[in-house]
């Protein structure tokens, strides 16, 4: 007992100050991508090397600001394949961790400010704003998204201080947080879990798989994301999303960050 207390004193308080102050993030963090149009060779813009290099077809030529490619952040794996392909070093992943949005089309990023998640409507916010119980459903998730949601429950992020908790049954939940591309063998289980959650309820899709199928998009077993099966209220991009990205999204949804 005494040793446990001494160890606790030695290991100190470790809960991050976020959202009160900026989170500490690695210098190589792959956050919001940034394309410097001035660096793009004009010949390249018509048939961008970065778009051709994207393994999941997340980039569409010419639809972004100043003729740059549009990036679908719901498909983006935040890998480095586009960077490696760019002859001019025009595309980089920045350190902006804020990526969560309310609508699928808001993830169509045009190299302009993202329309970050707005808070829930007044009535729902009144219900969930100070207490949001979520049932996590892994539907083909690779355990990276799951692990980085689990980490929100540790003393580092201490999700409970915001009134958010992961609960053991959909019957106890105000909503679902779904990870994975929803493989055929999980489709029915996800639907049943959704039906078992009492109304009103919300659904969060966390990670590229749950938004678009991620690396599994288009495979015969994949339903390419949660919103193919159930309506989604919050999309958190990433492969997997950084825990701060997920927390930022949830707090925006509850109107705790704006």
């Amino acid at each position, binding site marked *: 007992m005494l*040793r*446990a207390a001494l*160890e*606790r004193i*030695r*290991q100190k308080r470790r809960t991050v100050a976020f959202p009160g102050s900026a989170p500490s993030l*690695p210098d*190589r*963090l*792959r956050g919001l991508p940034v394309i410097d149009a001035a660096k793009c060779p004009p010949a390249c813009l018509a048939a961008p090397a970065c778009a*051709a*290099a994207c*393994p*999941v*077809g997340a980039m569409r030529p010419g639809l972004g600001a100043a003729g740059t490619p549009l990036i679908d952040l719901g498909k983006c*794996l*935040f*890998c480095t*394949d586009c960077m*490696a*392909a760019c002859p001019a070093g025009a595309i980089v*992943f920045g350190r902006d961790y804020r990526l969560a949005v309310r609508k699928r089309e808001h993830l169509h990023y045009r190299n302009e400010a993202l329309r970050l998640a707005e808070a829930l409507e007044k009535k729902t916010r009144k219900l969930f704003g100070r207490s949001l119980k979520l049932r*996590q459903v*892994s*539907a*083909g*998730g*690779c*355990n*990276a*998204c*799951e*692990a980085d949601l*689990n980490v929100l429950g*540790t*003393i*580092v992020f201490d999700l409970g201080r915001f009134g958010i908790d*992961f609960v*053991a*049954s959909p019957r106890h939940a105000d909503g679902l947080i779904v990870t*994975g*591309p929803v*493989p*055929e*063998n*999980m489709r*029915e*289980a996800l639907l049943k879990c959704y039906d078992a959650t009492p109304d009103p309820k919300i659904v969060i899709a966390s990670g590229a*798989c749950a938004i678009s199928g*991620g*690396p*599994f998009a*288009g*495979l*015969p*077993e*994949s339903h390419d994301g949660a919103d193919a099966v159930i309506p989604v209220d919050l999309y958190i991009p990433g*492969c*997997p999303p*950084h825990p701060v990205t997920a927390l930022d999204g949830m707090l925006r949804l509850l109107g705790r960050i704006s």
Partner: protein
Amino acid sequence: MPPDLTMRNGETVPAHLVPVLDVESLRTFLVGEVRGGGRLAALFGLPGRSGQSGTPGPVRLLAVVARDGAGILRPVLCEAGDRYPALTPDIPQAHLFEREIAEQFGVTPVGHPRPRPVRYHAPGLLNPEAPPEVRPLPADTDFFRVEGDEVHEVAVGPIHAGVIEPGHFRFQCHGETVFHLEIALGYQHRGIEAALEGGLTGPLATGGQGYGRISHLMATAAGDTTIGHTLAWCRTMESLSGTAVPERAALLRLIALELERLANHTGDLGALAGDVAYLPTMSFCGRLRGDFLNMTALLCGNRFGRGLVVPGGVAFDAGPSRLAELRGRFESTFRDVEGAADLLFETPSVRARFEHTGEVSRETATALGLVGPAARACGLARDVRVDHPFGAYRRLAARAATWPSGDVYARAFVRRQEIRESARLIRAALDALAAMPAPSDGDIRHGEPGSWPRPLRPESLAVSLIEGWRGEICHAALTDATGRVVRYKMTDPSFHNWEGLAMALRGLAISDFPLCNKSFNLSYCGHDL
């Protein structure tokens, strides 16, 4: 005459040298190998194609036997056809492999004691010649049942109580006591092997630095083992293209693999503490696990190491200041892990719950071919880093940690020892990196970036073993006359070990299942692929 082809971990051999046996000779060979200390690293079907024209032929089996003591692998081929007498009655560790072959190829291993689906996908998925059959619903099978007064059945899953992947567990209980547990998985099946079959095509083949989606499928096969599976794949590609990885890259790969082990082992100790309600270690380890993930992010920007390991080396270098930062963070985190682990193992109430819970005997572990910490906790000193060393492990020799008791305590204590061993290896690798001259171009990846992907040796077999944090990861690739990969087989350690969990539950109170499950902490998606 016994087949005589042997290969080393990570070696490529011409496919025509692989001995071809009939089923009975294969049985005799495997029984002899297992008796002599060998084990099945992989056993899988090959699409029935013969010659370059690709005309349909009988389904063949490829077995890869690992002889740990000698540090060699012995591959053998066998023509199975539509039906063949099952190997499992004589070689129990073939049980799940044969179920998989039956499901993927529509082949019947006659006399298999539990012929059930493995993943509940369309039958004959990898065999165009298989007769069409109705796809079963997930876990829709006749479970083994115990009959009798007051015997009852408990069904758990697919969705579990925690933030965890889906799977179905069916317990046969008498009161609290579990007579038998049958595990039905497949909910996580995303079709990775089918996607890899014959090389990627269509949209799957575009981009990805020439590899299309492959590297991303490897990174997400089991996301908590991103480094392990990606490394196994990269080593297979390097072997088939005859590439040597620069020393600096090999050391950075070792650090990445050991950080992955540290993160998961630390997380597991915390979760085990949580399952016996010992909150200090649970709280400490929850944080410390993330600190290790952040060290991986320090190297490459992603906490799971996505994109770090690439064919030919690594994609991110670490200069002296980054390595110094890594060392500083590592030492401070490691000291806290030691403190958290000491508390756990010195607390009598924890030991009382860990000891004699979920015992697996050494004999059972040997028969089932368990791997990784689950095997080492039964006293079996098998560790790919030691027995079949690869990359920088050839230089910085690893030591296998074992404990004989086969219970939750042993599985926890082996992890605790392995954390120390990982720390020793990381320090040694950091020392070796520090002693090298300042990094220059070409130190971290072989050749120019544009030189990848490289052509692969035609008509060849490559096998790569990696000791992931759960145990042995086995990747095997077979190329055709044009150097195209026609079969890529991934075996996650969980594939060997799930049956170990079922055996550990026998005679245990059902309320100990969460603790016992956590002590194995197996991958659902790594199994389901």
